[in-house]
């Protein structure tokens, strides 16, 4: 009897503790407002946005797992979310209050316990397949934003949805893009800035207009502003000959960031359409293939820089992060372009275009330009595509830098970034202009991936560089170019999720490999670190098959030819 009483007491206490914990978590989740996100760097335990913090460092300040004990790192749990067709898992997880949230194809969200992987809830929106199907990016999804007790997801059929973080129930659902005649939805993770959710559309290769970026009220779901990356103002209109902006693509398909000092959103923009047939779109084609700086409250353009004017090669500015650094009184934003050049901007926005402080080259086998002026950012010696002529272009349409992120460590002062090296043989065509803005594919070439001249095959590399000067401290060459994001930690480690399924931990100072584990399938998404019950975990998505990673089957054959492209898992590691 006494034992039963004690057990009952424990049960009651347990329920009470669980209730308190749940209430506490709910409170903390609700407290994740614009101000809390601004100070995300002060909470080492969570990963609350795509870039973890607005400075885009993708750096975890946790050090329980470090260079001394990483050899003991073991798989703690796996969560299998079910099928993730047509491209595996490309998501960047979030970790908040000990829970982990991530997405799979068709915009399905999973919430799991961060200590055990036990499922908490899943949310699967009903996608309008008729609207989503025509985009080649369907049904990709690359992540979430969090704030005000909600998770936010952009969908491939053009909606932004808020889901209650605790229950998984839909809070609001706002249709932002009319894709009735075509398809230009969302695949990138949104970004919460102050009281708004910012999300950018796809569209670079599609015959349509106008590649919008949206600002939406985080609580109500009401659209507050829209910035069109093409055709939205007189300067843009004047940069597109023959009204070509109407079918000019554009967009901002990856996640930008926010600089509180200047109250500015920095967002990368996608390439113009059509690819390769330049005569169809005379002019610079603003604001494609560059960076726009926007007022977060109004969406008004404050400044911009076009990294690739009149883009001939599909070298978006949409990919990559904006690594924000302050050095010697200067405020920098470091932004990689798909062409392989890394642009260092001055964040102190004045009149006119963004000020270039430096441009350095990560790519190693490029021939599309002879260089980029480090003082002005202007392309030097561009080798434009010629209609009807065979061209060998390096890098290929996939870029020397892809959309997954690098990582910066304030401890080493090094920025870690992946370069991917292959080219394409191609022939461009002059095509009739589409009759409408239907969002159909608008390429104008045939092409095929090939190794760069002088190389027996494609390859990849991770460079550890000074992010401002580009000076290299070390480089590790990879037979198979890694395709996923990188993670640097306070523990002195750099985690590299490999294309062949190997997850590696390198010494962040030297590049020496300290640990590895085979996840069984290639990595194509995000990697984070967080704590649950005061214990540090490393969480990485597995799963294969993005548009870029599919090249590896053509270039290498196996193991990529046989690698499934319809699934993946969330693998989580800890020191036992």
């Amino acid at each position: 009897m006494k034992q039963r009483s004690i057990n009952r007491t424990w049960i009651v206490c347990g329920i009470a503790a669980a209730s308190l914990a749940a209430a506490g978590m709910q409170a903390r989740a609700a407290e994740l407002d614009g101000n809390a996100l601004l100070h995300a760097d002060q909470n080492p335990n969570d990963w609350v946005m795509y870039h973890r913090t607005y400075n885009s460092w993708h750096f975890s300040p946790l050090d329980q797992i470090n260079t001394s004990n990483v050899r003991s790192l073991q798989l703690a749990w796996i969560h299998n979310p079910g099928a993730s067709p047509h491209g595996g898992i490309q998501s960047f997880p979030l970790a908040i209050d000990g829970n982990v949230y991530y997405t799979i194809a068709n915009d399905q969200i999973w919430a799991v316990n961060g200590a055990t992987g036990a499922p908490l809830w899943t949310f699967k929106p009903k996608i309008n397949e008729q609207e989503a199907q025509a985009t080649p990016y369907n049904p990709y999804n690359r992540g979430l934003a969090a704030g005000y007790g909600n998770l936010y997801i952009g969908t491939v059929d053009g909606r932004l949805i808020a889901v209650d973080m605790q229950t998984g129930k839909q809070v609001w659902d706002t249709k932002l893009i009319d894709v009735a005649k075509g398809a230009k939805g969302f695949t990138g993770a949104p970004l919460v800035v102050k009281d708004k959710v910012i999300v950018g559309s796809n569209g670079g290769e599609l015959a349509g207009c106008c590649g919008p970026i949206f600002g939406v009220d985080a609580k109500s779901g009401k659209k507050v502003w829209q910035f069109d990356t093409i055709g939205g103002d007189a300067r843009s209109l004047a940069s597109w000959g023959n009204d070509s902006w109407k079918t000019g693509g554009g967009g901002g398909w990856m996640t930008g960031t926010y600089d509180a000092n200047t109250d500015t959103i920095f967002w990368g923009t996608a390439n113009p359409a059509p690819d390769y047939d330049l005569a169809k779109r005379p002019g610079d084609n603003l604001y494609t293939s560059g960076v726009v700086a926007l007022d977060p409250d109004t969406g008004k353009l404050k400044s911009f820089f076009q990294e690739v004017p009149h883009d001939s090669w599909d070298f978006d500015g949409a990919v990559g992060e904006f690594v924000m650094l302050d050095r010697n009184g200067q405020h920098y934003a470091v932004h990689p372009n798909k062409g392989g050049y890394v642009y260092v901007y001055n964040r102190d926005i004045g009149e006119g275009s963004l000020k270039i402080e430096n441009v350095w080259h990560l790519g190693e086998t490029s021939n599309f330009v002879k260089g980029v002026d480090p003082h002005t950012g202007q392309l030097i010696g561009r080798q434009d595509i010629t209609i009807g002529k065979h061209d060998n272009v390096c890098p290929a349409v996939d870029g020397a830098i892809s959309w997954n992120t690098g990582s910066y460590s304030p401890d080493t002062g090094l920025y870690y970034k992946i370069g991917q090296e292959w080219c394409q043989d191609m022939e461009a065509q002059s095509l009739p202009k589409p009759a409408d803005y239907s969002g159909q594919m608008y390429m104008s070439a045939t092409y095929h991936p090939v190794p760069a001249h002088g190389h027996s095959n494609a390859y990849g590399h991770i460079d550890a560089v000074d992010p401002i000067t580009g000076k290299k401290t070390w480089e590790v060459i990879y037979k198979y170019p890694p395709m996923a994001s990188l993670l640097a930690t306070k523990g002195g480690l750099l985690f590299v999720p490999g294309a062949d399924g190997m997850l590696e931990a390198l010494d962040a100072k030297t590049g020496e490999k300290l640990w590895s584990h085979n996840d069984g399938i290639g990595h194509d998404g995000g990697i984070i670190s967080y704590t649950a019950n005061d214990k540090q975990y490393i969480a990485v998505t597995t799963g294969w098959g993005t548009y870029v990673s599919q090249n590896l089957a053509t270039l290498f054959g196996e193991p990529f030819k046989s690698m499934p492209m319809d699934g993946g898992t969330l693998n989580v590691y800890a020191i036992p």
Partner: protein
Amino acid sequence: MKTLRAAAGIIVSCGALLLAGTVAAGAADQQAQSPPTAASTAAAGVTDAEKAAAKQIFAAQCSWCHGDYGMKADKGPQLAGTQMTEQEVEERIRNGKPGYMPSFRKFLNDQQIALMAKYIKSLKP
């Protein structure tokens, strides 16, 4: 296991024009086992004008996934040498294959789809 590997080898995960059993990718698709028909053999007579028109459509719509005007495997399989019939190719373009390739009925009319099927069947690996 061998069948699974062959099937995986022809999986296409981008907006592809055509997922077919091909000589290069292996013949895992049941349709790839179909014997040639009158429709498929009749395709050889594509004119130069038809070929030029088909290559324009290919460059706009198909090159995202299929390499070198269909002559090489890329994200999608090599199309030259497909053992699908011309009618089957038409249906694949028109309806797509869920999870692998979108339908192109929204962007290509029946005449264009027929032209593309004829062009693809004319390709010699």
